[in-house]
Each structure stands twice: as structure tokens, then as C-alpha cells.
């Protein structure tokens, strides 16, 4: 079963990673339960976890938000297009947040390994994280909506 306690290491990871990349305000907007497929907002990054914490996370955002986040990460460099540099900035962000969360799990004695992120860009595609039920966390990062869909279980 999905355990809500699995969220805290991620919130902690956001607070560890995001400020060091130049983001100022991180607000938790809402937490809901999702089921089945989720609809991509345009840019979705999938990353898997294994060992004591198992499952998948889909980081979901619009292309506009992805460009704004990438721009902040590049010290304010304007990002007009979702080009290679912006794509890798977003992949790197997901890698850093999930990697940081994995070390937070380790600190609690739960061994966790992560897969590399897969960045998916497209129109009207659907995603199913490994479990049928998952948690949907809405975060506002400097006013931009990042949706984090977590289908995780604690083995």
C-alpha cells in the first residue's frame, strides 16, 4: 500500500535541492489520491526506485513551466525553447531531487536505488506509474506548478 509517510523525504529533498539552484519559494499546494492513468501536461519525467522503497514517480509540468524552471537553473539565462540544454536541466533537476530523497530514505535505514530519469515530451499522452493508486502532490515553485505523482511502496 502507498504510504503517506513516503512523502516527507521528498519534501525534505525539495527544500534541500531547490534553494541551492536559485528557487526562492516552495509551497505545498495540495495532496490528493490518483488512480489509473495520469495525463501529461506536456513535459513528464519518469524515474524509478527500487529495493526497500519501490515504484515510480512522474514529475509532470507544462512546457512553459519547464522552460521557466530551466531558466532559473541556468542562472536566469533566457530559455525560449525546450532545447537540449533545457531538457537536460529538467532531467538533472529530477535526478537531484529523487537522488536526495533516496539518501533521506537511506538515513531512515531504507535502502533505495534510483534509475536514470526518462524525459518525455509530447501532446496528449498518458502515463501510468507502476501502481494503480498513487499520490498527487502539487507544489508551487516560485509560482510555477510542479505536479509530482508518486506510486511508491515500502517493501
Amino acid at each position, binding site marked *: 500500500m502507498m504510504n503517506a509517510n513516503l512523502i516527507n523525504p521528498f519534501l525534505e529533498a525539495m527544500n534541500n535541492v531547490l534553494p541551492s539552484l536559485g528557487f526562492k519559494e516552495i509551497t505545498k499546494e495540495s495532496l490528493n489520491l490518483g488512480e489509473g492513468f495520469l495525463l501529461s501536461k506536456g513535459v513528464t519525467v*519518469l524515474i524509478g526506485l527500487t529495493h526497500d522503497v*519501490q515504484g515510480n514517480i512522474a514529475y509532470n509540468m507544462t512546457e512553459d513551466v519547464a522552460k521557466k524552471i530551466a531558466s532559473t537553473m*541556468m542562472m536566469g539565462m533566457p530559455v525560449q525553447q525546450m532545447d537540449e540544454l533545457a531538457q537536460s536541466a529538467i532531467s538533472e533537476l529530477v535526478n537531484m531531487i529523487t537522488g536526495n530523497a533516496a539518501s533521506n530514505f537511506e538515513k531512515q535505514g531504507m535502502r533505495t536505488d534510483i*534509475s536514470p530519469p526518462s*524525459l*518525455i515530451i509530447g501532446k496528449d499522452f498518458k*502515463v501510468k506509474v*507502476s*501502481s494503480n493508486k498513487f499520490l498527487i502532490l502539487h507544489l508551487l515553485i516560485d509560482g510555477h506548478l510542479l505536479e509530482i505523482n508518486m*506510486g511508491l511502496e515500502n517493501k
Partner: protein
Amino acid sequence: MKKIRVLIVDDSPFSQTIISQSLGDELFSVCGKAETGIEALELYEQLQPDVVTMDITMPDMGGMECSKRLLSTYPQAKIVILSSLKHDSLIVQGKSLGIAAFLQKPVKEQELRRTLQAVCAEDKEEKNWQEQFNQNFFSCLPIVFPNITNLKCQIGEAEKQGEKIILHGLAVIVGLAGEKQGRMIVNTSLSAAEKLTEKIFKKEPQEEEVLNCLSELANIICGHIISKFNNDMHGTEFTITPPSVILGENMNIINRKFNSFSVAIDTELGRFNIFIGLVGGI
């Protein structure tokens, strides 16, 4: 033993001297020194060094810009940034570009030598490892896939893929974690997946069952191949993360810095494409 050839890019003669003093011996040779970005690009082309040490601030262009230009022409270039600044956003930007490592000035001699050596050695070790992995994968696939699906299969040649692949229909992604990282994707049309599920379940399947069937198929294929690989390569502990599914008409999947291959498998139910990739140089 062949010396590691280093190109030093730094506009300060003082830094150039310090760096080359740390490297002048039987392990390294400084093959060139550049004071500007333009000079660095020219010298790289001429000298083809094994590794570059790159300053961040230079008169004509920044070290980041210079690295970006260098890597766009020579994606395999090994660049180590030496900078007095070392904040996270710089590292993120650099990693995105494909920079191999970051060091903060003043750099200790041992640290510099260790890093340059590691960056160059990694490349070779990585390549052997990947070759072995790919070989293993492609020798297992023609046995595992028909066995699991019970389909008559015509298996194509492995084709090299770039960082971006375009998918249509249904795709299952299985992550690889542990010592090395990667991912495998099984992609087919929704109708081929439906037919396969119907064949296995012996009844008209629900959408949920189709997704589960293809996920399980991907999971088993990957699991088989990985466990054989772990056995063959003693001491390797590769694990897989649970499958996730994507469904759509036009999906671009991007895996940065992946060495990736695809194989097309034609069956009586339609075509299945398998993509396998590991993080690492080419």
C-alpha cells in the same frame, strides 16, 4: 604506459604554470596551453588531447561557452572545469553540457591528478562494460522474447540510437539501477498488445489487462537478462525498477548521455521494438 595528454585552458599565466607543474611527469604530459576560448578550440582540433582543464572566466568567451562549443563538435571530449566558484547551479549547467568533473581553485595537486586520471580511465572501463552488456543483451533477447510470448519472431539487427527516440502507441519503461544505470523500453501498437494479451488470456482483454500484460512482459524480459548478466559478471549487482507505461501518438523520450540501441522484432501480431540503453559515453 601511454601518458595522459592534457590541454590547459586558462587566461592566467600563473594558473597555467601551477597546473602544468602539477602534471609534468611520467603519468601526464601537457600538450598545449590556451589563453582564450578561440585558442582552446583551435588547439583542441590540432592536438586532440585526452583531457582539458578549463577555466571559467576568459577574455573572449566563458569556459562554459567554450566547453559547449567544444562538446558540440567533439561530444567525447573530456573537460574538467577549474573554477574559484563552485555553486550548484554552475554544476547543473555544466553537467547538462556534458562536463566530466568540477574542481575548485586552488586545486590540490593530488586532487587534480586523481580527477584527470579518473575521467580518462572511466571512459575505457565504461566502454568495455557496455560492450559486454550489449553483447549479453542481444544474445539473450532472441531466446527470451519468443519463449515468453510464444510468438514466431523475426529479430532484426541492433541499431544505434541517439539520445532522443520517438514512440507511438504503447510503451513500457523499466529502469535499471545499481552500479550502472539505464533503462529498457518495450514499444508496440495498442492493437498488437491487445492481440498478445488475448492470446495469453484466451479472452477479449480489458485495457487494464493489456497494460499489465505488456508491463509484465517487459519486466520478465529485463529481469531474465539482468540476472544472467549479474551471474556472468561476478560481483555486479544490477537491479530493475518497476515498469511504468506511457500511451500516446507522438512521444519523444530523451535520456541524456545514453549509449542506446534498438531491435525490431516482427511477429504475426505486429512489430515490437526493444530499446536498451545505459548511461555513459559512446
